[in-house]
Structures are given as C-alpha cells and as structure tokens.
C-alpha cells in the first residue's frame, strides 16, 4: 500500500495548476456567471480543455482519452475543484460517449465521438418519463419501425439543459411483450427533428435547467440506433455504472467544506465565531470524517478499475455517500447563512446587502435536493447493493 505522489505526479500537478491558472481566466469566469452567456462560456471552456488534450480523462486512449493513471485522475480532479472549476457537462462526455465507444458501430464512433470531444454537440439525457422514474424500465415512449426510420412518440422529463441540446440519447420502447427490460432500444435523436417540443420546468431553486421533452411522430434513422433493437437496457445499465463513478463529487465536496469552514470563521454570533461553536464544529467534522473516508473509498474503486476491474455495485456506494455528503454541506451552509439563506437574486452589492453567500447557499441547497434523486435514487442504489453485493 502506498499513496505517495511520485516526482512525476508532482510535476503533473504543477502542470495542471499552471494550465488552470492560465486558461480559466477572469473573463471566462464572468461569462460563466452570466445566464445569457452561460452556454457559450461552457462550450468555450470545454474547447480549451480539448485543445489541452484533457477533455476526456476517463475515455480509452484510442478514442481520445488521456491515458492517465488513477493518481493522475485524482490529482486532476482535486486541482479542478480546488480552482473552483465546474466539471464538464456530463451528458455527452461522461454518459453517452462510453455507450457509443463500447456498443456503437464504427460509423457511429466516427460520426459522434470527435464532435463530443470538441464540444461541437451539446447532449442531453432522455431516460426518465412522467410515469417512469425509479422504475426506469417501465418507460412507455414508443418507437415503431417504418422503413429505415423509427417513429417516436412520448415524453421524457427532468431533462437537464434540453433547452441547449443538439442531441438527446433516449431509451424507447420497441417491444411490449415479455420482460419490460427486454423491449427497450437505445436511440440517438437530433433535437432539431420535427415533432420535438421542449417545455421548461422551473425548479425549487427558481432556475430553469430542467425540462420536459415531447416527441410527436419524430422520425429517427435506424443508423442512430446503438447496438441491437430491444437490447438498449443492457447498454444503459453499463452507462449508469459509469455515471456513478463520477457522481461522488469528492473533490468538489472538499472544496465546499473548506468554503464553509472559511465562512464560519467570519460569521459571528454574540461575539463568538461560528467556527468556535462546539455544536457547529461537530457538524462540520461529522461531514469531514465521512468525506475523508469516501475519498479513499473512491481511490480504492479507481485502483480496482485501473487494474482491470469494472466499476460495479461499489459505485452505488459512492453515489449514496457522495450525495449525502454534498447535501450535508449545503445544509450546513444554509444554517450558517441564517437570515440571509432566503435571499433571491437582486441588484444589491454584497456590501449593501450585508452578506456574501446567502443567495448562493440557497441555490445550491435547493437544487442539491436533486442529487439523491437523480442517477437512480439513493433508495434504488440501496436495492442494487442489496442484490449485487449482498446477494439478497
């Protein structure tokens, strides 16, 4: 057992730091913070990562991955979060791409993967439906073969960033007989296709990132089907395991916790810093101790994957613990903000308002409720562990 960084690792860390310092400049940060320029700024940032060769650390090298060791991936993630840089939009790079390079044909790989790497296409995920949440396999959006096209009818929901998307990857029903898992097909659908309608959903953080996507007689070429008809569930399951290895968000939680610690040294109650309040300290360390452990749980999973193992049901553990920790940090920050936890976006400066982070705390706390729901709710993750690990 050895977790020390080698001289090469240290050199790599310095290289990553230098790049982030140079490339993640203030102008870009300002554009990311502005709703009207958000999408362009994200694409711009991801293109800078692509030019650096670092856009897809988890892809196999032959398709454009970095070939990094687990230690290098860990260093990269830690530095990214420490610099306050958001992770790439996952739907293309982290979710559909692994399905395409694992189960797609050569034509599909050539057509889609380079554009995903360059962030030329913005992807969104079409899994959940108004009637199918945790019971994903009960989905009803139908695709009927008509010549060399599928005709798709139905609706998807909770579709993050559908308003920006060029493409959506969908699970659709092609067969209603037999087991519900066996009649599902994996389709890649152009969002510009006639018959697609995107309806915005405002979430409890008062923002619009979620949508409902309607499909009315949408025609999709058979060439956009991944693998075989009726076998989509198998491909989707592999994707879900992938999604979960990145879902723990350890590096971001570490930064979040340090932010709260810093803020708690500024918040005063009756002349005493919140950071000196034993009850507050205990809540902080309750979270930190779990996070210190989770960091090594993630490293253990990464090491297993690097030595040829697949990310299995252990990734469900990362999802559950990781999201519990994220929410605990968000909750602590809300309590820290006290009266200011309710602040909605406004034109006042922090000085006029009298507080720095109330609005940000509210927004991440409110939207953060999604984390234990999405990617397969935490209760579903427990079902997965019970079955796959415990054999129950």
């Amino acid at each position, binding site marked *: *057992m*050895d*977790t*020390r960084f080698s001289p090469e690792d240290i050199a790599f860390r310095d290289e990553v730091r230098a790049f982030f310092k140079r490339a993640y400049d203030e102008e870009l940060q300002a554009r990311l913070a502005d709703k009207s320029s958000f999408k362009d700024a994200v694409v711009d940032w991801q293109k800078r990562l692509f030019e650096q060769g670092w856009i897809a650390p988890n892809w196999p090298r032959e398709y454009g991955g970095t070939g990094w*060791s*687990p*230690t290098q991936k*860990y260093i990269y993630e830690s530095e990214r979060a420490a610099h306050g840089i958001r992770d790439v939009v996952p739907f293309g790079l982290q979710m559909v791409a692994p399905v395409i390079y694992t189960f797609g044909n050569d034509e599909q790989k050539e057509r889609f993967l380079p554009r995903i790497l360059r962030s030329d296409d913005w992807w969104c995920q079409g899994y959940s439906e108004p009637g199918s949440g945790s019971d994903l396999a009960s989905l009803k959006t139908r695709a009927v073969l008509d010549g060399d096209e599928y005709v798709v009818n139905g609706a998807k929901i909770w579709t993050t960033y559908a308003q920006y998307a060029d493409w959506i990857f969908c699970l659709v029903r092609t067969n209603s007989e037999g087991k519900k898992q066996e009649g599902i097909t994996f389709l890649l659908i152009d969002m510009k296709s006639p018959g697609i309608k995107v309806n915005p959903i405002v979430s409890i953080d008062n923002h619009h990132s979620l949508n409902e996507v309607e499909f009315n007689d949408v025609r999709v070429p058979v060439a956009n089907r991944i693998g075989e008809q009726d076998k989509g569930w198998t491909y989707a399951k592999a994707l879900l395991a992938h999604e979960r290895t990145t879902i723990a968000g350890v590096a971001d939680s570490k930064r979040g916790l340090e932010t709260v*610690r810093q803020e708690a040294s500024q918040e005063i109650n009756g002349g005493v810093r919140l*950071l*000196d309040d*034993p009850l507050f*300290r*205990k809540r*902080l*360390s*309750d979270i*930190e*101790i*779990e996070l*210190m*452990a*989770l*960091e*090594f*749980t993630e*490293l*253990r999973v990464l*090491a297993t994957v690097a030595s040829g193992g697949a990310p299995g049901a*252990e990734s469900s*553990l990362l999802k*559950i*613990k990781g999201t519990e920790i994220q929410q605990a940090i968000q909750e602590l920050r809300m309590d820290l903000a006290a009266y200011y936890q309710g602040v909605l976006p406004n034109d006042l400066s922090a000085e006029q308002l009298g507080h720095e982070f109330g609005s940000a705390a509210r927004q991440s706390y409110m939207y953060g409720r999604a984390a234990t729901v999405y990617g397969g709710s935490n*209760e579903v993750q*427990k*079902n997965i*562990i*019970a079955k796959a*690990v*415990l*054999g*129950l």
Partner: protein
Amino acid sequence: MNFDFTEEQSMLRDSVARYVQDSYDIETRRTIADSESGMSAAQWQTFAELGWLSVPFAEEHGGFGGGPVDTMLLMEEFGKGLVLEPYLATVLLFGGLLQRSGSDALAAEYLPKVIEGSCQGAFAYLERQSRFALNDVKTSATRDGESYRLSGEKVVVFNGANADALIVSARTSGEQYDADGISLFLVPANATGLEVKTYKQMDGQTVANITLDNVEVPAGALVGEAGAGMALVEPVVQSAIVALGAEALGIMAQLNAKTLEYTKTRKQFGVAIGSFQALQHRMVDTFMAYEQTKSLLYRAVCELEEGADSAPATIHALKVMVERAGKLIYGEAIQLHGGMGLTDELDIGHYAKRLMMINATFGNGDYHQGRFDELRCA
C-alpha cells in the same frame, strides 16, 4: 498509488487467518476467556513460534521489521477471531514503547524476550481520575540517589494480571495535568511495594489495578528521557489506535457476514427475512459503514507509514469512525438476530462487547472528535 499488499504481507495475513479459523473457534475462546488469566500461554507460545510477536520490531532487535500495514493485517485477523491474547499490551504498547525509547539497554534486555514469548508486558498509564487524558498523572516518581521511588495507583491495566514487567507513567516534575514532567519506568511485576488486583472485563480480558507504594527502581529503569514521557507515549498510542481500528474492522466484517447469512436462512411469514426491503436497506447501511471504516483505516495506515503531517488528525477521525460504524453494525447485528442476538450462546454479543471496549480504549469517539476539531478549527 496502490492498495496492494506485498507477497510477505499476504502470507502473514493468510497465516493468521488460517490459524484463527483452525485453532481459535468460539468455544476455545470461551474457555480462555473464562480462565483466570484471560489468555492462553500455549496460544501465546504458538504466536511466538509463528513469528507474529516479532512483526513490529526492527531487525536489530531480532524483529521482522514490519510496518503499520503488517500490524493492520495481523490485528484485523485477530479481530475476526476475537483473539484474547495480549498482543496490544505486550507487543504494541510495552514493546512499542521500548523500541521507540532510545533506552538501548532496556530494549536489548526485554525485546528479545517479548519476541520469543517469554515476557509478558503491560503499560500502566490510566489513573482513576484521568479518563482519556494521558497527561493526567498523579503517580509520582522521586529521585533518590541512583534510584527512583514510585508511588500511586494505576487502573484498568491491560494484561496487568499476567505481566512480568510493566511500563508505568509517573510524574517526575510539574503539576497533575502538565504534559511535561511525565516519565516512564520499567517496573518488574515482582517489585517490592507493587500490588496487583485483578478483575474481568466484559470482553473476556483480565485487567488489573496496580498500587505502587514507594517502589524502588534503578535510574536505568527510565524508559526514554526523564520528563519527556508524553513525546514517547503519543506516537505509540497513535499506532495502537490504528491497530485497534484494524481489530475493529475484522470484528465488523464478521458481524456483517454473520448477520447477512442469518437473514438469508431465518424464515418468518414464510420467507427469508432478508427478502424484506426494510432489512435490506439496513444491511446496506452496515455494509457502507464497514467500507468507509476500511477506507479510513487504509488512509491512517498509509499516512502513518509515510509519516504525513496529517496523520494525527486522520487517526482521531478513524477512532470516531470506528465508534460510529461499530455501534451501527453491532446494533443491527443484535437486532436482526432477534432474540438469539441477546443470548450469551451466540457469538454476536461477544463481538459487540469487544467493539465496545475498543471504543473506550484510548478515548472514545466524542473525545477524539473534540481533538480532531481542535486541529481543524484552530
């Protein structure tokens, strides 16, 4: 970065695992626990022959030259078998203090005897008022020419009943709570003025309260430097906490495995109770608690081995996690075993009681969380 064990380490773990499985079943353990000494001299001799008593000692002392990883693997397997023999007291504490002390003559005299199994040791640090504060020492040691004279009382001395020699913390200067001024002395168990009162703990150990009434030891009995005992005690106790964490992990593994097995076979309402989601999710919680404890243990072991500055905070965190996860795991194990979980006949309760004693040893979770917070929120 890797979490692999060397071939030597894997062999050590396998040899302990095999031994525990073949020669340390629950009935054997029960007989040992019920004996007056709370340990088996024959088992101890076998441990010596298998080389286990030499694991953490440097080769210059005749040891195996092992590190925290080796100790972890050994203690984890001991935990699975609820091994009662005083590895912590004799090897890790008594031997560990001697090895680190720089008192070469004492180390040269005692360590070979520890390794060959002919000397039982103990570390008498606790006093009835001191709870978890290692620096709360009233026992006094007064210089008298070429000797020291020790007076005071030590309580809950692990292996105090069987020890041939004890290392005793005593104050040579300063006030009751001062970290400075504490010295360690090697005191033979048969010294004049030393009285031993033994009693049993719920985990099967026999411990002792030890009274020192003007006990005379030569100046050469000083372990380490006079007045600087805490600097010696702290790293040894830190290593011991990590070792106890490994023992606890082994216990947690057994409790989880036995509980899981039980819920697959126990039938109620016509089905195995493991088919109920309410129970499944609780067993997922105990599985995650186990994995998280394992991760933090690995983290502590790596940092200890690497001498990282962060090691003390991580070891505090580990002690908190061991208590939190341990209580969850033994609590669920008893609950899911139903009425059987309450019986002395079943081993579940015995695993639980050892975890409880581990929690109390060297400071419980609350104590260590407080120390952790002091380091983190300064």
